[in-house]
């Protein structure tokens, strides 16, 4: 199969262009690009507001409005396609002081959280945070779950938070949700959730040397064989190591 030239592909799509506004300036960009790709297409070299490019890190949170639409939208630039008339602006991060806490000194209850983040008691339940969240989470429900002392629910509701801070920008109570949620999840992980006993058992097995022989075989495999083995396992087959040839890599 001939390899595709991405540059010509870009030029071939000029039949379907949309206009987006970056820092107030209009640019014509192909309609199938994400906001992030469109910025690069327009000639920007991104050194802020870009990170994993895979929808996980939250660095590319972008605020925009659309033509003839009063709503304020907030999405991740790497996950959202451009639309005609988008007015884009990016916030590389949201300044917020993170209090220092020591997990071992705390109890898993809402008072512990209110001690460090008293702002959460100012929540007026306006739900602006939920409307801002590019991950479609419900920060308000999580904050209110903390008020009910239901930390488990708050941790579950905030599990997919990418800490972009969009909710905190919109919050009239000036809550710094992502710092609050991190503390909640730490407390739940440390004190509420069941210990992962199988992990401790596996660590013991490893420390007892039960996998040393297999590891030696793996380390000794030639690259091609290792690749084949990886593909076989990825397809769902059980791990079957080839018989070890004694002395091969000793």
């Amino acid at each position, binding site marked *: 199969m001939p390899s595709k030239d991405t540059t010509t592909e870009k030029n071939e799509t000029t039949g379907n262009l949309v206009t987006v506004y970056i820092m107030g300036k209009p640019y014509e960009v192909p309609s199938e690009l994400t906001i992030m790709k469109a910025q690069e297409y327009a000639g920007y070299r991104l050194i802020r507001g870009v990170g994993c490019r895979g929808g996980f890190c939250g660095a590319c949170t972008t605020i925009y409005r659309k033509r003839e639409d009063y709503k304020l939208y907030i999405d991740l630039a790497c996950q959202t396609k451009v639309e005609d008339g988008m007015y884009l602006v990016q916030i590389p991060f949201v300044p917020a002081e993170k209090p220092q806490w020591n997990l071992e000194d705390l109890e898993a209850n809402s008072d512990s959280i209110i001690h460090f983040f008293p702002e959460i008691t100012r929540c007026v339940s306006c739900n602006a945070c939920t409307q801002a969240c590019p991950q479609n989470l419900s920060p308000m*429900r999580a904050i209110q779950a903390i008020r009910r002392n239901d930390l488990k629910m708050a941790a579950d509701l905030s599990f997919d938070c990418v800490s972009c801070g969009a909710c905190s920008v919109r919050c009239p109570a000036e809550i710094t949700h992502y710092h609050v949620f991190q503390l909640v999840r730490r407390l739940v992980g440390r004190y509420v959730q069941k210990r992962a006993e199988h992990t401790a058992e596996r660590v013991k097995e490893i420390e007892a040397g039960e996998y040393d022989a297999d590891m030696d075989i793996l380390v000794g495999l030639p690259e091609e064989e290792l690749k084949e083995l990886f593909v076989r396992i990825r397809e769902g087959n059980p791990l079957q190591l080839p018989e070890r040839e004694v002395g091969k890599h000793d």
Partner: protein
Amino acid sequence: MLYYPGCSLRNSYPEFEKSALETCTRLGIDLAEIPEWNCCGVNFSLSDNIMRHLGAVRTLISAQEMPDLSGDEKVVALCSMCYNVMKRVNLTLKEDAEALENVNLFIDDEVDYRANLEVIHFLQLLRDDIGFDHLSDCVTVPLKGLKIAPYYGCALIRPESIAIDAPENPSIMEEFIRSVGADPVDYPYKTECCGNYHTVMRKEIVELRSKVIVDSAKLAGADLVVSTCPLCTYNLRLGVRALEEKTPILFFSQILALSLGVNPHLSPEREKNVRELLEGMKSYAK
């Protein structure tokens, strides 16, 4: 009956809720907790701006959307502060069509609130749905001879529009105390304010006020004081400490639990004190 617990009962004073729920089981009261209720918005309780009270509105919507409702349900609160805020918000939405419309337009992520719920306090439930006469028939351990000072504070009776009884001289708590077999103590400070949130920044104001209230109840012969409010309870206990006193400040539900022979969930520091009082009471009864 739809049930609104409130944050203080889930955090600072679980004994209030636990004892009340024990009495409900005994009295056959079926409480259904509102799913994902919000904080009532007590921090903004004095604001008449309805946009500061969206928490209460969302809770009422959540209650309204519970399955199998007949349409004119009651929401019962234990904490008198929660009662006060929820009741006032609900009243505003019932009486002010514009406020209701504004709120419903703003909360466009939820169904509209239809303003057909009623907010009541647990004492009203005892008086109006159970009846104090019937309640006294259910009492298995009458608290005979125990002198109890009712403390109303503000939230149950002010402002007048949401008062659960005559605001100038309420008697619902006295009737309640009589129905559990105890003697209500009359004293002039039963509706005085405890100092409320001054407890955060101006503790001396709260101490001053609470000392006067507790001292007055003691002078009138009270063995203990009952309250309906977590914050009043906290503040009155400050007063007790400032007086170097031991008068227990209990929640009314704990007195009810004692009289019904169910667990009053007394905290360890009050358990001994209250048990001693009850022992003394028995010898008095002889």
